[in-house]
């Protein structure tokens, strides 16, 4: 019998719906409550839950600290990159109207989608990174501490 069998099984069942919900919140943010910040936090929670139940090393195999560091910066770069794309296409910084010259409203949709994606990537990576930094200071949570 592995310890915390119920926790492990329930976590395995819950993990994919949590990640799916994060993507739903991310890409449905234009139509319903939510957006990059909330989606990033939910996605981060999925990784943290995995790390809590299956151990930090298992989680680090899925999202290594190196990847987390890169993703943290990548999100901000995507956000600023959308701004620069607007700049190079003849508009102002972060002006989404010019992203689709034939239809400014579609340009707004593109801009919002990519910008929210950048927010989501940075937020989820930062949440997981902060958790790694805190949890990594304790060698392992012993069974008595649960």
């Amino acid at each position, binding site marked *: 019998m592995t310890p915390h069998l119920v926790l492990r099984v329930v976590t395995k069942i819950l993990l994919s719906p949590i990640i799916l919900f994060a993507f739903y919140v991310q890409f449905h943010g234009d*139509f319903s409550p939510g957006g990059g910040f909330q989606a990033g936090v939910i996605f981060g929670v999925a990784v943290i839950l995995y790390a809590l139940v299956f151990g930090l090393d298992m989680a680090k195999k899925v999202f290594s600290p190196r990847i987390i560091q890169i993703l943290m910066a990548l999100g901000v770069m995507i956000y600023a990159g959308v701004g620069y794309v607007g700049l190079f296409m003849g508009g102002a910084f972060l002006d989404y109207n010019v992203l689709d010259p034939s239809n400014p409203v579609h340009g707004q949709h593109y801009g919002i989608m990519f910008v929210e994606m950048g927010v989501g990537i940075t937020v989820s990576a930062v949440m997981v990174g902060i958790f790694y930094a805190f949890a990594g200071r304790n060698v392992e949570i012993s069974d008595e501490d649960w």
Partner: protein
Amino acid sequence: MTFFAEFDMSIFVDVVLLTFLLMAAFAIVVMRHLFSVVMVGGVYSLVSAAFFVNLDAVDVAFTEAAVGGGISTVLLLGGLMLTSRREKLPVTRRSVIPLLAAVVTGSALIYATFDMPDFEDPDSPANAYVGRDYMERTPREIDVPNVVTAVLASYRGFDTMGETAVVFTAGLGVLVLLGMGLRVAPATDKEEDGT
């Protein structure tokens, strides 16, 4: 259900939730067992999220539930692993000045609420100028149903970029201070982490 019955219900829910919030805050102040304090803190966030839903601020409620109820609780628990489980008893010096300051500030704030515009008043300053402008322009210019997203990502896109940079900077600060186990071996983390 008539309009008035619905309105009364909303007020009733408000009062119940605010009572819960008050009880949770009081419990946090009184309790000395830090694990319970963190857990009640999570309850506080969840109840305030419900309170925001009742105020029709679903986006704020969502963020509060995810960040306050989820991440902060987990991070505080992670911090709790590194410290003791029990708060030290404070050195009690009964002084009347802090109580006086709290009472005066509190009554000033309550007095200030009498001048606040009514809830859902369309002519209140928050709804009248920029807010109304966004509400009118969003269907025409951006055409997304959720005006909050339109304001957040498009009209105030520059602010949101700053917020993302703030989140990034916070993560960077923690990584610079604590590291992520990249430089030292995980087994000897505790002893050699003074880099």
